[in-house]
């Protein structure tokens, strides 16, 4: 007997997970750690380097996992981090 295959709807694009690029404005960072703690995919870690004020800014550990959710940008008190969608340029 032929294997019954599920009919997929025709013509619908496959939903794609967006991919975001993270931009960190290191000199503004005051090392609070909010973005590192609350990134849903935990792509940020505390870097070892210092910025001019003596804080450790975050650095991107797993850039391929960023989905442009924009939570880091919202939770940052210093306006020091944001993301944008590579293909469309959308900034959430």
């Amino acid at each position, binding site marked *: 007997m032929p294997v019954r295959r599920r009919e997929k709807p025709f013509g619908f694009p496959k939903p794609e997970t967006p991919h975001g690029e993270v931009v960190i404005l290191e000199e*503004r960072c005051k090392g609070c750690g909010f973005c590192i*703690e609350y990134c849903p995919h935990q792509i940020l870690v505390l870097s070892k380097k210092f910025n001019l004020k003596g804080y450790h800014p975050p650095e991107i550990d797993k850039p391929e996992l960023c989905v442009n959710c924009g939570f880091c940008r919202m939770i940052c008190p210093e*306006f020091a981090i944001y993301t944008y969608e590579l293909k469309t340029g959308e900034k959430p």
Partner: protein
Amino acid sequence: MSVLSELQKASLSPTPDFHPESHPMDDFLRMDRMPHIWCSTCGIGVSVNCFAKALEKCQIPLDQVVVVSGIGCTGRVAGYVKVDSFHTTHGRAIPFATGMKLANPKLKVVVFSGDGDIIAIGGNHFINAARRNIDMTVICVNNFNYAMTGGQLASTTPEGSVLSTSPFGSYEFPFNLPFLAESVGAVYVARWTSLHVYNQTVSMVEALKKPGFSFVEVIAPCPTIFERQQKMGDGLDRLRWYCENSDIRNGASTKDVDIRLRDRIVVGKFVDVERPTYIDAMNAHYRERLGAKYKDYEG
């Protein structure tokens, strides 16, 4: 006059460590005054971020927005947002905003100030503006103390807190701000913490769009003073604590949302009712009493 021109030059130059890489919100901020004075892990910057996002979502033209604040750490918000902003005296941001709104009802007036400023010294103005339902949005960042002056007891400080004017722990019962706001007639009352950024933004959008006196309380960490004195860590530890210990209960009765020092916090949107604003009530009333002689007040 050369001294004058030197001072002119000095006042126009940007701060020494200003960096021109840009962030999407930079148009909204006075970049020539950055970096701001708030401590690392302070929750006020997060609220300003949410406010900027809320303004973007509401699509209110920034030329019409006025931010009025009082004195204190949160009171410095007026100095950092690039809209017509007024940094007034301690506790009197709300009557200033009342005068401004009544003189030009087309302005979108936002009072952005701290708990001590709005509810302690400004308490009388808060309750009367809410009673009158003046069309303004009040965003109260509650860090449970008077931070700018070094951390004194405030009227929202939970019982038992150790602060500089309650060195052996506070024995005063604090205000329950949503309960107070609802009882004096605010039409929109919500409370969120610094962690709930999306909820805060949505609440701010709703508060901005709602005609009448809307009140958004934001529980924010004060790492340098409040959290340090209570040995609760820094802002990040406090955000983790909010994550574990906050209950989102939209529509909860405001009588039950007291804050105790190491107890769970209830957050959510508590009140969303309709009432005519001051100017609408005034126009309707005069139209009825004075008839055709009266022309609606438009500013």
